[in-house]
């Protein structure tokens, strides 16, 4: 991974659209508003970290759950996260590596309000809703 950058030329996502439908009356279309106008998230200050060495690296993150209304009524979705590399003491081929990496990565996206999803309304899912935490 370290010495072979060209091996990762195909390591990219191309996202045509991402939409989240809830029964609360809105279709939240998670797509950037204007091409080239994606606001990238500000860094989240490093804070105390609870390490759990049994966690997968992938999920060892503390997402920042901040949602802000933008002036046009869209919801700003901003990334803020940190990552904890875990000890590899259970792997035998190499001495245990204990590292802690904390980084933030982010990109603002926007949630556009839309329509109720009929399927969910029809079934009257109890307690259905989205959260603004």
């Amino acid at each position, binding site marked *: *991974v*370290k*010495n072979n*950058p060209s091996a*990762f*030329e*195909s*390591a*990219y996502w*191309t*996202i045509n*659209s*991402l*939409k*989240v*439908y*809830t029964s609360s009356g809105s*279709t939240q279309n*998670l797509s950037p508003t204007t*091409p*080239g106008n*994606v606001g*990238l*998230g500000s860094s989240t200050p490093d804070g105390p970290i609870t390490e759990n060495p*049994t966690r997968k*690296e*992938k*999920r060892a993150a503390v*997402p920042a*759950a*901040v*949602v802000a209304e933008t002036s046009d009524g869209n919801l700003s*979705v*901003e*990334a*803020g*996260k940190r*990552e904890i*590399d875990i000890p590899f003491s259970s*792997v035998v*081929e*190499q001495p245990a590596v204990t*590292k802690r*990496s904390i*980084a*933030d*990565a982010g*990109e*603002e996206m926007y*949630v556009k309000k*839309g*329509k109720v*999803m009929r*399927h969910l309304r029809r*079934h009257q*899912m109890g307690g259905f*809703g*989205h*959260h603004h*935490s």
Partner: protein
Amino acid sequence: VNYVDGSTAQQEGLTSVNNGVVTIRSDSTNIASGRGRNSVRLTSHKQYTHGLVVLDLEHMPGSACGVWPAFWMTGPSWPNNGEIDILEGVNYQSTNAMTLHSNSGCTMVNKNCQGNQGCGMQQGGPASFGDGFNAANGGVYAMEWTSTAINIWFFGRNNIPAGATGANPDPSTWGSALASFQGGSGCNIDDHFKNNNLVFDTTFCGDWAGTSVFISIYI
């Protein structure tokens, strides 16, 4: 892996938008140092409990030694609010892995969903993941999360149901899900899954992609 911040990602061209199409890259030009290869992890600020997530994806990180891409949802205080892995795999995995992770007391698809192992399955064939997915120009992944079930569908580019990405998608017309996690006596879904953020990331190695054979090249 070294997840960079937003401004760095933009400066290095790791994130970009063209005509509404979002591209998220990992560094593929530099020898990595420090924490490792630069990459991006994108998390929604918004959290969801229930909902229908529809992702129209043209390309995902291709098959490569040590790569671990995922499109997933996860809540605070892992695993107490659950984790839903919609699209995930490592290395040269040939088909998609869909997995739930929870705290104790949740059994679905005849497996204990607790903790790191989780409960899940690999389904969908070569076009559902990695190079096979990309060769077919991707497709649509959809995940419906209700109190009664968590269902995941994959539709190849030429088999996307009408309206699936429109204003009123209707999963009841989509046929059997690729993975169907049914709640009930084995798992009260609402007790174990709530307030999840959406996440895209590409990591390298780690304790899945980095096990045994791959650990020797871990940075």
